[in-house]
């Protein structure tokens, strides 16, 4: 059995409010694994902690946040013990991340070429000429036409789809082992989304890249991911191989998410199934199992105590009292 590329063990990240009086458990006791070259999807509503999780792995949290417990094992090493200097060498070079808004991600004052070449020059000490020519190759790899002219242009001269590819090119420039994508298609037009996703898949295949794909879109998860983790109120409520989760969801929340996606074959007159209630306030989550106020199968136990993670099938876990005697 190969050692997983990335393994999170009971990771917890907390935010402190400005007055230091309230603590928000943005990421609460999260454990996940990811094999090399595979794709893990992380699904959840806003406020579920997905982005904080990504930033925790990169150890680039805002000053109000702190990792308070757990381990992040990447290629066998615990990232939490790394010095800032060592982390810097890991970021961009061994683990890369792309953000949601491509326009905001690119510095408006520098050329495209400059921004791509920068990673190469910093991490690999490439000379300006070498970095520039590799940047050209990268632009071609992300299917941008006329790369030589494009390299000298500025971000505001590109379309949204192009910018996202450029961000992708920057990410894979130094051949990282892991790419974290935080809602990369959310701000793209639908027609461009499909192209972009297929591009990501090709990049993954060509570079044996593992991916963590953060999204709220189950359709994308189905298309892109090998495994998926569902997050709710900072916890992973269910995780497992994609087929398992989609065919036999073990957690009521996952089940509700899947049912809420309307299908063409649904009865035209039936009401659209929606999950009752509101997502919880991250700084004041409900007691016990955080989903209990909205759960159709809630029991007394759910309100009193938070369920531990239970193995439901091979590699398939869920946090639900329904699966415990």
């Amino acid at each position, binding site marked *: 059995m190969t050692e997983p590329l990335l393994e999170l063990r009971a990771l917890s990240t907390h935010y402190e409010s*400005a*007055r230091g*009086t*309230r603590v928000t458990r943005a990421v609460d006791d999260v454990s996940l694994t990811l094999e090399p070259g595979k794709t893990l999807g992380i699904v959840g509503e806003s406020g579920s902690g997905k982005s904080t999780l990504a930033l925790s792995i990169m150890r680039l949290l805002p000053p109000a946040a702190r990792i308070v417990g757990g381990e992040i094992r990447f290629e066998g090493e615990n990232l939490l013990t790394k010095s800032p200097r060592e982390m810097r060498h890991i970021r961009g070079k061994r683990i890369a991340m792309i953000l949601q808004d491509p326009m905001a991600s690119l510095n408006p004052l520098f050329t495209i070429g400059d921004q791509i070449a920068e990673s190469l020059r910093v991490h690999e000490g490439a000379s300006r000429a070498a970095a520039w020519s590799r940047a050209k190759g990268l632009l071609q790899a992300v299917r941008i036409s006329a790369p030589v002219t494009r390299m000298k242009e500025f971000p505001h001269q590109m379309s949204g789809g192009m910018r996202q590819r450029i961000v992708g090119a920057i990410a894979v420039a130094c051949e990282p082992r892991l790419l974290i994508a935080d809602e990369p298609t959310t701000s793209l037009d639908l027609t461009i989304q499909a192209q972009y996703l297929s591009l990501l898949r090709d990049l993954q295949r060509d570079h044996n890249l593992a991916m963590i794909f953060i999204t709220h879109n189950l359709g994308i998860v189905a298309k892109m991911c090998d495994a998926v983790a569902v997050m709710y109120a900072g916890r992973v409520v269910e995780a497992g191989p994609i087929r398992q989760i989609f065919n036999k969801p073990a957690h009521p929340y996952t089940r509700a998410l899947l049912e809420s996606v309307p299908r063409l074959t649904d009865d035209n007159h039936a009401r659209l199934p929606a999950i009752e209630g509101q997502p919880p306030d991250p700084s*004041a989550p*409900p007691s016990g199992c955080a989903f209990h106020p909205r759960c159709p199968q809630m029991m007394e136990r759910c309100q009193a105590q938070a369920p531990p993670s239970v193995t439901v099938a091979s590699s398939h876990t869920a946090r639900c009292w329904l699966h415990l005697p």
Partner: protein
Amino acid sequence: MNASTAVVLAEVPRRASRRLSSYPVVPLAIIGLMVFIALAADVLAPHNPEVGSLGMRFRPPVWQAGGSAAHLLGTDHLGRDVLSRLLFGARVSLVVGFTAVVVAGLLGVALGIAAGYLGGWVDEVIMRLTDTWLALPALTFAIFLAAVLGPSELNIIIVLSCVYWTRYARVIRGEVLSLKEREFVRLAIIAGCSRLTIMRRHILPNVLNSAIVLATLMLGVVVVTEAALSFLGVGVPPPKPAWGLMLADGKRGLMAGYWWLTVLPGLCIMFLVLAANLLGDWLRVKLDPQLRQL
């Protein structure tokens, strides 16, 4: 608290930073003190500020050699008591400062609302004028106006109002432009209110916040400008005790080392302006975080 509500975690030790005080104690205290002094100067001042005895010229403050208890903070080149002049000077600075700020504010807010709400050529005219006057450096313009009008307390107020209304107009117009699009304004138009009524009842109350913040920040600027004008001789005319005038007089004794004639009035100006700035900053953050841009 029942089980399904907040599970607040253990108190984390307070951070020392980033606490907005509930009340801006220091600036209010300073301004309050000055207002009190301005009102009670007649009672508080030990001597007549405008009359001095030539035999007591250039006396240092009481704690220095040659000082006397009759003149705690010394005397100036005409033998006038510095402490009394400082106390009455507060009155002048505050009266001129407040009045100018309010008048400029009234003018600026009115024109800003008119420009923003009425649009069209009214807007164009007002904005061109505002931009041009904003481009003129306040001090130079003020000096020019003061030279044209002649020195007197009233004229200074007029001058300062003319110079500083533009600061208000610009900002208020911007706010009005965005307020115009809001629902309650549209509803008022549909209900048939006249433009004047809308401007008065709906727009005006909503821009008051910014106007107040601006006014507080302007107070400091106006006080310094008035001091500069008086220092140059085109502000408050002698023998009235204005801090700026005292600085001008103090210059005569500077080379001889008569420090109290320069340092003390300046400190007064500094405290007033500091208080105004602190108050303005506090108000700015408290009333509307968007006003950070000011």
